[in-house]
């Protein structure tokens, strides 16, 4: 049991932190929503009703979509683009899908390789791109959720202001939708660019996200 916990600590801790922060967001969002309700001369709503509201769903989904977009882009772009000196990058000259031998697929699969790595055709293609594809699908699903919950939340505000509600298609052209979307995208792209570039010159001893402390600044694709 203790070994299992230790061996999976990273995933477990992040999963737990996610749940704690999501609950905290729910309480903060509920308080914020009720402040606006009272300011508009209405009654506060219960936590349960808030958790099933479009407002909460839109706030959650708009952040999820940008996170999955970040990983989707990072996974695919690092196949083809390199950053000299970054431990996040492959070495210059290694761009591309690499050989079957390097990727241990087909006849180069080992005994403990996933069975789909040994198989050919669609199964191998799916496994070979599964990480990026799932991130991409989660991005699309989250963005779609943001748009659907977002139009309902937006229309609730429209009615509060005695304005006409809009359709989903019209909402996709509204500044509200793109402001929510782009403010998340820019922060994710900044975070990735910061990681790629700062990790050239800075170190974190013991972290696989960093080069070993003594590695030269121009060492690429070396993880500590």
């Amino acid at each position, binding site marked *: 049991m203790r070994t299992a916990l230790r061996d999976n600590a990273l995933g477990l801790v992040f999963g737990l932190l996610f749940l704690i922060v999501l609950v905290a967001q729910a309480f903060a969002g509920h308080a914020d929503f009720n402040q606006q309700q009272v300011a508009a001369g209405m009654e506060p709503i219960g936590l349960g009703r808030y958790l099933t509201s479009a407002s909460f769903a839109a706030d959650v989904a708009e952040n999820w979509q940008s996170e999955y977009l970040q990983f989707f882009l990072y996974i695919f772009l690092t196949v083809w683009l390199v950053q000299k000196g970054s431990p996040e990058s492959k070495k210059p000259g290694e761009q591309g899908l690499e050989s079957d031998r390097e990727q241990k697929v087909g006849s180069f699969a080992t005994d403990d390789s996933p069975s789909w790595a040994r198989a050919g055709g669609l199964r191998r293609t799916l496994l070979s791109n599964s990480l990026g594809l799932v991130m991409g699908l989660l991005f699309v699903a989250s963005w779609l959720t943001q748009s659907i919950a977002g139009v309902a*939340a937006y229309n609730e505000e429209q009615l509060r202001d005695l304005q006409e509600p809009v359709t989903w298609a019209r909402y996709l052209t509204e500044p509200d939708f793109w402001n929510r979307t782009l403010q998340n995208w820019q922060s994710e792209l900044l975070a990735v660019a910061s990681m790629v570039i700062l990790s050239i010159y800075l170190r974190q001893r013991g972290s696989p996200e960093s080069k070993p402390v003594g590695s030269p600044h121009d060492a690429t694709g070396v993880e500590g």
Partner: protein
Amino acid sequence: MGKPRFVRLAMLLTTVVMLAGCASVGERSSAAEDAARLFLQAVADGDGPAACGALAPETEARIDAPCAESILDEALPAPSATADARVYGQRALVKFDADTVFLAVFPDGWRVVAAGCTPRGERPYDCAVQGG
């Protein structure tokens, strides 16, 4: 080969939740329309106390006292037989043939926030009766 039991259970639960969601939206729209209709009909019938009882507190507070008399002076048309009701969260909009009514949810149900409203394009509706 039949679907595994958990898949069938998940499909059943999904269907129940979706139907419950549709029923909930339909019921809320219907309730909002009923509240708007009750208000406009009370004004048309000259029943000031009933009309004022259907208003949101802030809207009622904005009407010259006594509300039961002043509300009847507003040029509000009687509700048409059919209406289009749309609900988003705590707010609803009900469009009758000759009037548009805005409502909000309170602990005892839907109440009228604004009535006698005419559209002004991108700008807010211009309403004969409205809250703060």
